[in-house]
């Protein structure tokens, strides 16, 4: 176990190293480079540009810049924003809880509902419920998240007025109820696609498992159908889905970005969009790296969970 963890963490480190190089290269290859916002501004003089370059260390060779930046990232000094000079780490980490709240709640909700729908659809194969949920999932998967978001705002916020149209808290109110009230629409919108995927995956995995010999053995014992379904069926059907949850993380991160934008949810996604327009590269890079770390660690966690629940899977060192 310890060896497996060390191995996987090393692999993750190499992966993140690669991501950081690609990200850094893209930032420098972008037209105008990191300072495009200044160089393209006619009121900023050439002398000003030179001054800013020296200030941000952009006059040094690219590899020196990279190692300074990467070294800082690892040691906790994430640099300073091009605009306002605030600490990047502060800016980004301030937004992290809001994003985690949104993603975590959506993921949990989606798992519970998706697995329930998928299981029921597998048990009642070819029933009205099965077809209805299949069509629903197809619609949810084929339409973009931002469109659902706008639709939700239009109906539930503007027309019906049931929920606030955006933000995390009302001004002058910070109660738990108020926060939950704000959470509902973004969570539902973000969870929608995940529910659609999970219900489909669960259904097909469950259908596979229910045809297995060991499910027949369980039924032959005379235990209750719900016990057969949950203890024998779901237990086996969910294993491949745990690994899948890890692979789904990038989708979740992307969905969170869109959802935060639509609902002005003050998380990392919204921050990303706003610094994208100002090309605040140190902040952009930090967000990219945090996103990558979340995805990589999430996958590692999924692998560990699989190994813990499935005795056939050994955590070996490849």
């Amino acid at each position, binding site marked *: 176990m310890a060896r497996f963890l060390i191995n996987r963490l090393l692999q993750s480190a190499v992966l993140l190293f690669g991501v950081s190089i690609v990200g850094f290269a893209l930032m420098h290859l972008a037209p105008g480079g990191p300072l495009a916002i200044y160089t393209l501004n006619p009121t900023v003089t050439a002398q000003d540009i030179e001054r800013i370059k020296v200030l941000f260390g952009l006059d040094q060779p690219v590899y020196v810049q990279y190692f300074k930046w990467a070294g800082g990232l690892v040691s906790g000094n994430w640099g300073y924003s091009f605009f306002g000079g605030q600490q990047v780490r502060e800016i980004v980490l301030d937004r992290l809880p809001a994003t985690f709240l949104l993603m975590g709640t959506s993921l949990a909700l989606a798992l519970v509902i998706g697995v329930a729908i998928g299981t029921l659809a597998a048990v009642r194969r070819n029933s009205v419920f099965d077809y209805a949920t299949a069509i629903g999932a197809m619609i949810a998967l084929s339409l973009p998240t931002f469109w659902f978001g706008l639709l939700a705002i239009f109906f539930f916020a503007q027309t019906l007025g049931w929920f606030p149209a955006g933000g995390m808290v009302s001004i002058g109110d910070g109660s738990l109820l108020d926060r939950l009230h704000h959470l509902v629409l973004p969570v539902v919108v973000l969870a929608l696609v995940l529910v659609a995927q999970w219900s489909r995956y669960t259904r097909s995995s469950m259908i596979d498992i229910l045809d*297995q*010999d*060991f499910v*027949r*053995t*369980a*039924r*032959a*014992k*005379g*235990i*209750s159908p719900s016990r057969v379904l949950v*203890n*024998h069926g779901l*237990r*086996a059907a969910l*294993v491949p889905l745990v690994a899948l949850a890890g692979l789904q993380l990038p989708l979740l991160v992307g969905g969170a970005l869109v959802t935060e934008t639509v609902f002005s949810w003050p998380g990392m996604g919204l921050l990303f969009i706003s610094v994208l327009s100002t090309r605040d590269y140190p902040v952009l890079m930090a967000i990219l790296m945090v996103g990558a770390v979340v995805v990589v660690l999430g996958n590692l966690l999924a692998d560990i969970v699989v190994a813990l*629940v*499935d*005795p*056939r899977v050994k955590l070996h060192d490849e």
Partner: protein
Amino acid sequence: MTGEASTPLLKVENLLVAFGRAKAVDGISFDVAPGEMLGLVGESGCGKSTTALALMRLLRDAEIGGTAHLNGVELLGLDEAAMRARRGADVAMIFQDPGTALHPMIRVGDQIVEALTAHLNISRREARKRAIDLLRKVGIAAPEERFSVYPHEMSGGMCQRVVIAMAMACAPRLLLADEPTTALDVTVQAQILELLQGLVREEGMGVILITHDLGVVAGMTDRVAVMYAGAIVEMAATEELFATPLHPYTHGLLRSIPQLDSGWDEPVPTIPGSVQGAELQTGCRFAPRCAKASDACRTPPALREIGENHFVSCWNTP
């Protein structure tokens, strides 16, 4: 063992199983006396497993007709909850492939415990104790340690012992053993059969032993029913059947047993043709492959008693 006086443990009358339009079992009747072992033989696809699964009511998407009285209770007419109370308690089944019959993610001991607690009102501790006793009874060394092992950590023979322990858990009066040794090594086969025979004698339960190995039938069973294409074509006491087989199909089966004293280069006689499409036949289903076929065979022969307790369905036997 099949005296007129003893009421049968199991009385199957006109059992019919259809998957859509295909009749896998076409109106068979037989009975099993308490403590009797009935062999059910026939080539692959003739409906042996289907017969057993129908009695367990474990078939899905199948139409079932006829009656099956177990100790006077008509199994095929029970509602699902009542049938569940019988499964494992009154009638249990051993499956063909021990490699897939056990749940891969549940400790073997716990799988036996589940079979016990499904019908007996006992504490978990007591169930654990009994499961260990059962493991010992089926010849598993160090049962306390083996209790916590997963199926993939055991050999096929060991797994089949566990499956047998599970079937024996609630001391059912009828045991359906569906090719319990087909998936095992030859040396292990003999051990498992010996174990099974010992246990069955000890408990005095009735058994239907499904196999296509006539050697097994000769050594273990009291009576044999030979199936062909969903119908029983001959049924007699084992010795009688081997001494005076009457149906041409039984003849063929007996001739196709490899003889120890025959030379290496002598081919084993086989029955020409295949069972394919036999259920579409209007007359005798074996007629297309039968050397003795005559005009009479265009009408289907009924199973009739020719000698004492010797039944055969063929027009061309004396």
